[in-house]
């Protein structure tokens, strides 16, 4: 159960190696005891993430989960909830391939869409169902500013995130009155493994800054948060840009 300080006692991280998700877990762990379920594809990275959290005092479980295989999600999510109530779930998985490569490889393009959108829809629907039964819980969905007005250089990833943002807002409305809350996180460029080697745009941020913003938004009970905050007016501006101008953006 969330306590009076809105600290979760248990959290599920879908995308168990996500640096943003792990930063959120570490932040809550610093505030009190925490049980963490890391759901992800089995890998050494996942084992290391579990070991790190355990060393920091968390009670950690690993559940095999592949965002790209929605047919397996029901069983995987069932395993995530088998250990008791889940107070906070973070949908943190994502895939950001090089767009030019993906445009030459339709399979990779489809995989980008299915991980970032279809997989998240499947996980979101299942999380909503499980949490509605328990009558409480917070679903944190890590979307992206890239979904606000996809630019030419990242429209593939951006289009999936645009769908995810729309889905998440709809899900939040649908869950009104169920005791389950949804937090939509729109992050700008975050320094992680996923973005390593990319050119750094303005307003870049860190996993820790995202985690801090998420913990604060969960506390305040808000439904969406932008990281950094300035990403919001920038996104608004992007939305207003005439197409002719947008085309010339990188």
């Amino acid at each position, binding site marked *: 159960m969330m*306590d*009076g300080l809105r600290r979760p006692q248990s959290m599920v991280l879908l995308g168990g190696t996500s640096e943003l998700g792990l930063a959120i877990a570490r932040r809550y762990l610093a505030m009190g005891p925490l049980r963490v379920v890391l759901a992800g594809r089995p890998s050494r990275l996942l084992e290391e993430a579990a070991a790190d959290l355990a060393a920091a005092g968390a009670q950690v479980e690993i559940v095999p989960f592949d965002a790209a295989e929605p047919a397996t999600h029901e069983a995987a999510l069932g395993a995530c909830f088998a250990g008791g109530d889940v107070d906070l779930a973070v949908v943190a998985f994502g895939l950001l391939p090089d767009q030019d490569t993906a445009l030459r490889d339709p399979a990779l393009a489809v995989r980008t869409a299915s991980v970032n959108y279809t997989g998240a829809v499947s996980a979101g629907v299942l999380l909503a169902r499980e949490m509605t*039964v328990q*009558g*409480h819980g917070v679903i944190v969905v890590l979307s992206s500013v890239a979904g606000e007005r996809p630019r030419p250089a990242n429209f593939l990833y951006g289009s999936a995130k645009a769908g995810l943002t729309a889905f998440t807002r709809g899900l939040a409305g649908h869950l009104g*009155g169920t005791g389950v809350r949804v937090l939509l996180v729109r992050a700008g460029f975050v320094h992680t493994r996923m973005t390593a080697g990319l050119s750094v745009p303005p307003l870049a941020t860190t996993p820790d800054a995202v985690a801090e913003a998420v913990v604060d938004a969960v506390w305040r*009970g808000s439904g969406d948060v932008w990281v950094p905050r300035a990403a919001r007016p920038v996104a608004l501006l992007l939305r207003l840009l005439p197409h002719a101008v947008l085309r010339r953006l990188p």
Partner: protein
Amino acid sequence: MTLLTGWGRMEPTRSTVLSGDDERLADAVRGAGPRGVLARGSGRSYGDAAGNSGGVVLDMTARHRILSFDRAAGLIRVEAGLTLDALLRAVVPAGWCPPVLPGTAHVTVGGAIAADVHGKNHADAGSFGDHVTSVDLLTADGTAHTLTHRDALLRATMGGMGLTGVVLRADLRLRPLDTAWVTLVHRRVDGLRGLLDGLSAVAPGWHAVARLDPSAGRGVLSLSAPARLREVPTVHRAEPLRYLAPRPLPCPPLPLAGLARPRLVGAANRLLGLGRRTVREVRPLPVAMFPLDRITGWNRVYGRSGLLQYQFVVPASAEAELAEALRMVAGAPVGVPLLVLKRLGRAGPGLLSFPMDGWTLAADFPAHPALAPLLARLDALVAAAGGRVYLAKDAGTDPRHLPAMYPGLTEFRRLRGHWDPAGVFRSDLARRLSL
């Protein structure tokens, strides 16, 4: 499907709310799903004690009849949903009063039993459960049992936070009362030593409480006792037992509620600015005993995020730990508008009763995550001192400390396992603290 929260306005959870007669409640218990059933009274516990997310919550407040009242012996049989306010209005004019009154009259009798509440006269009168002679309890098999102090299940039910069953009815023993007025003596005291001495040296029959100003290292000791007839204001002397409850002032709605905070806190701490060293006054009983009831919904003044009250007790010998806890609280990152110290007398009748022979401190904080390190340090200090936190107030205790704080927990769990093997009675508090 209803969203419910506690008095401290923590994150609401959804449950199915039912109410009705014994048969209807028994049906709900027998048909309980995996998320279980829980009785709820006025919802005045601060945390999640009266919530049962995803399960069934039995709203008991419509069951508020007085079933019998022996005016000669001072014995009364009531339904569990009766509030103390309604009880007082019925028995005070007849010259009787419950021996134990908590800080608000809006709790139900069932809730007062489930939390085994105490008053400002605990050393003298014990806790609420000490004056309950029998309880009708609806247990997990859907049958009602009449329990007396000979039954171990009653010891688990008093202070058991509703986890043993549904209190349907109770028999209470009342104390005679000459007037519905209270004589209060407030004395400004500098230093913790003086306050502790003042709280220790209370004459039998007197209530005692100290409000502290943690920054200034001083406080006000308030002693109170039922007024004698000659102390009652002349205009009321013809009818000294009339119950004069003031009409409560409404708290402004949420966006504006914060505006009432200085007024509320000011009213509660009015005496901290006491110019003279001693003030004596005679007040109607409800005014004297329930100062915060004068503003309905006063919990709203802490805004959307709510308030967190941390109340603990440490053994009487642990004065050093008490002083240390006070220093910690005074250094809280969010400020402490209300700080109340009392002396408790002896262990309560229940396995999970809060009271023990010692000092109890209650601190109201505006809830904020920045309190996490402070609460962790307080929990550790209280547990190490052999003390405990009050479950009816709790919204943030580290569950790992519970077995040390409540040695009766093992026996409580055994009895619960015996009477409710399937775990029909559940609450969010029990989930959070693994009770």
